[in-house]
């Protein structure tokens, strides 16, 4: 396809990145100061990119949606971060991390990108240790590891159950250092609301100051989007409240292709939904599956008795428990990848074996407590157990936890080439906001790895390569027609929303959207449901633009308006997700089409027809988007049916 050039360097897989770095163009220090880079989002990807680009000498501006970069969504990651250090001497290597990631992604990721990710992963650990990240250590004082789903080695580095927090605070400290040095300027409580282009290049953004409501114009030579994923399209997810895909949609409307929107990860171990006023779902880290065993009763009558409160889980004898993951997947057991564990839970609950409300299974630590002692279990998972108890009001040391799958992560995102550049020159995307490394399913502890790889070790090279051509491009005035026009159009959009004064609150419409998506574009998808989703979403869009009620005004703090703007974009994105799910007539990773499964109920890929990245191009409000295909060539990996048995 002529429009999609992934710019993969020549040469053997393991030499591509080295070769790229050797051939990449540099910018001299005096010129760096004259080049401005905007980074949007202060999660792991954004903070690490801004700190690294600032340290190189570029003039960086970073935009943070909350009051401090230390609060970005990455902070919530619990389990850990992968790297192929092979400190455990259990046979790990860059090649194996690469292979596991490609296989975990169900052979829908680009080989060259994933190999680079595996190569730089080790440097992430070194970098974080040097920053003072207090990773867990063993008694000899060396770094400790745990296992995560989809891997047979122990390669996950962690800091209690707060790995994301510690990594983000590390990146935040690096950022703080650069802010002090004056190379990075921080704009807090700002939300990007529009991308500004000139001569078909990204040249700046419009932001809304969330404290005052003011619209502001910021110009640059390159823009990095690091705004995270779009799981909140489903309303209920494990994502933080401020997570949203709006910035990516803004870029999509300006011409950046959106890749694989239908690849959504449903995490198997979340606290089940309790009521209709619930605002978000809480994840129980995947690391719990290292020691916890997942089960439901073997006899359906026991499940009914538990649901009706006549029996307790502890009443069910060992031989009457169905450890269904261990039964179905003896090789990986409770540590099968997320998509598989999630579907298996849904299958049991749909068949009537669920506990709690019927939409829950048990995660039991009885065996672990017997084997290791409660103290050791507490040392490993204490804060997670406490978190669970605060929410559910039950003690997981005594009674098994209840869990159920929930929307967690989005593998899809802005299409990027090897340089993490979108189809708009000068517009880069990093972290969860891009589509690049996880194919159709992400392995646990690989998102933190990818965010930091992009920010610390990839963008500093590739953005520089782009900017080397821009040293003669003068700064674009924020009073130029491009900026005025962009600001005017967002302002009109906001005024339009405020003027509707309808009867439906944003929350109500958001819940409606979540409902449509969970039912029709959720864990098990079907052609019929996907076809139904598209007109339902069109109707919702119409309802939004004719009947939403948003109080307050433009020029002051107004969270209702913020939510409404994001919702409008989420409805558009939802439609794209349904379309993408519809065109992909196969099952792979997080995209499970009920029509395409094996006799045992496993995902059935169609490599012949669907071994491509589906990248969507916006064609205007009234027109249907166009699908472009980036064919995936597996030169080095032998493609197989994924098997965890």
């Amino acid at each position: 396809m002529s429009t999609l050039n992934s710019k993969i360097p020549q040469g053997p897989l393991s030499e591509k990145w080295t070769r790229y770095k050797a051939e990449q163009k540099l910018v001299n220090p005096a010129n760096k100061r004259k080049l401005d880079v905007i980074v949007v989002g202060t999660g792991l990807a954004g903070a690490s990119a801004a700190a690294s680009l600032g340290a190189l000498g570029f003039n960086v501006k970073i935009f943070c949606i909350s009051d401090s970069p230390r609060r970005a969504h990455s902070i919530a990651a619990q389990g850990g971060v992968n790297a192929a250090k092979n400190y455990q001497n259990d046979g790990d290597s860059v090649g194996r991390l690469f292979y596991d990631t490609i296989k975990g992604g169900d052979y829908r990721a680009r080989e060259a990108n994933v190999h680079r990710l595996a190569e730089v992963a080790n440097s992430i650990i070194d970098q974080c240790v040097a920053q003072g990240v207090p990773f867990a250590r063993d008694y000899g004082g060396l770094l400790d590891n745990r296992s995560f789903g989809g891997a047979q080695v122990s390669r996950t580095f962690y800091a209690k159950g707060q790995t994301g927090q510690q990594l983000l605070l590390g990146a935040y400290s690096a950022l703080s250092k650069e802010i002090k040095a004056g190379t990075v300027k921080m704009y807090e409580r700002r939300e990007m609301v529009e991308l500004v282009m000139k001569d078909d290049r990204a040249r700046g953004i419009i932001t809304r100051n969330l404290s005052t409501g003011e619209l502001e114009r910021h110009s640059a030579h390159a823009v990095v989007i690091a705004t995270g994923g779009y799981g909140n399209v489903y309303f209920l997810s494990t994502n933080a409240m401020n997570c949203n895909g709006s910035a990516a949609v803004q870029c999509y409307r300006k011409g950046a292709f959106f890749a694989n929107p239908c690849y959504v990860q449903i995490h198997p171990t979340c606290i089940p939904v309790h009521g209709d006023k619930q605002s978000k779902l809480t994840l129980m880290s995947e690391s719990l599956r290292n020691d916890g065993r997942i089960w439901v009763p073997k006899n359906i009558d026991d499940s009914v008795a538990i649901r009706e409160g006549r029996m307790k889980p502890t009443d069910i004898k060992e031989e009457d428990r169905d450890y269904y993951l261990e039964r179905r997947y003896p090789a990986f057991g409770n540590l099968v990848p997320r998509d598989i564990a999630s579907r298996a839970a849904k299958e049991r609950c749909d068949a009537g074996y669920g506990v709690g409300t019927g939409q829950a299974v048990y995660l039991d630590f009885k065996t672990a407590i017997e084997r290791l002692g409660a103290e050791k279990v507490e040392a490993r998972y204490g804060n997670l157990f406490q978190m669970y108890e605060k929410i559910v009001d039950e003690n997981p040391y005594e009674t098994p936890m209840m869990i159920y799958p929930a929307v967690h992560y989005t593998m899809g995102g802005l299409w990027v080439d090897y340089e993490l550049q979108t189809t708009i020159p000068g517009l880069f995307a990093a972290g969860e906001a891009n589509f690049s490394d996880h194919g159709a399913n992400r392995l646990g502890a690989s998102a933190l790895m990818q965010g930091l790889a992009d920010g610390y070790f990839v963008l500093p090279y590739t953005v520089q390569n782009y900017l080397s051509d821009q040293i003669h491009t003068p700064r674009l005035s924020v009073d130029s027609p491009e900026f005025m026009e962009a600001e005017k159009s967002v302002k009109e959009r906001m005024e339009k929303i405020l003027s509707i004064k309808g009867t439906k609150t944003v929350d109500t419409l958001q819940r409606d959207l979540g409902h449509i998506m969970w039912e029709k574009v959720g864990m098990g998808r079907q052609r019929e449901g996907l076809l139904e989703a598209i007109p339902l979403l069109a109707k919702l869009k119409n309802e939004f633009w004719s009947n939403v009620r948003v109080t307050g005004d433009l020029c002051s703090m107004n969270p209702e308006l913020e939510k409404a703007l994001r919702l409008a974009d989420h409805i558009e994105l939802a439609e794209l997700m349904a379309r993408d799910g519809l065109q992909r007539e196969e099952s792979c990773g997080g995209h499970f089409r009920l029509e395409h499964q094996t006799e045992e109920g496993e995902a059935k890929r169609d490599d012949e027809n669907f071994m491509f990245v589906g990248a969507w191009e916006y064609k205007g409000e009234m027109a249907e988007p166009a699908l472009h295909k980036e064919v995936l060539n597996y030169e080095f990996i032998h493609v197989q049916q994924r098997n965890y048995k």
Partner: protein
Amino acid sequence: MNLTLKIWRQDNAKSKGRFQTYKVTEISPETSFLEMLDILNEGLVDKVEHPVCFDNDCREGICGMCGLYINGRPHGCDDGVTTCQLHMRKFKDGDVITIEPWRARPFPIIRDLVVDRSAFDKIIQEGGYVSVTTGGVPDGNAIPIPKKQADQAMDSASCIGCGACVASCKNASAMLFVGAKVSQLALLPQGKPEAALRVQAMVAKMDALGFGNCTNTYACEAECPKEIKRSNIARMNREFLCAKTCSEE
């Protein structure tokens, strides 16, 4: 349950604030405190009134964004939790709940229950980091760190920067917050080279920003949702004294 809420409303930093009374009904005990406020706000939007502004993001006690002063206690009546982790099962039918923002001069109010805590970032920018840039660092296992020390550093590093320590202190002191960061880095070999400079710079900034002194009441420790220990303050004082004596020598 049915509840009466007395909530601080203030349009912006300059305007005068006031308490306003609201009723919420049929709140279930599983609802979280912030979900209860969501329900209130949805009702206000229905009546075309301004919803109450309050900060929040992760809603699982880790980002430190939420922070409400509930019935006279930062983050409310439950121990070791943030506001977003507080559940309505801790209240009973008919309760009157007073909700205020953090009250401390270095944290000016932006709107309603939202305050500006950027003073914390300014303190960190003075030295709450190890001065390394990307790349060129030694292998992660090059320097073994005794497990106990690493665990202690982790405990200090658990601070979420919510500001409850400042809000609970009659002097609006930030010693627990600063002490936790100073301790984390002082405990680790990576933080040692700059330890003396760091503690002096951070303490100076903390004073300059108008945070008060510590008079050993330790309300901060009692109210910290992450149970950060007062020993962090002691370590900071030690580090500070050491740094001062060394620099005078």
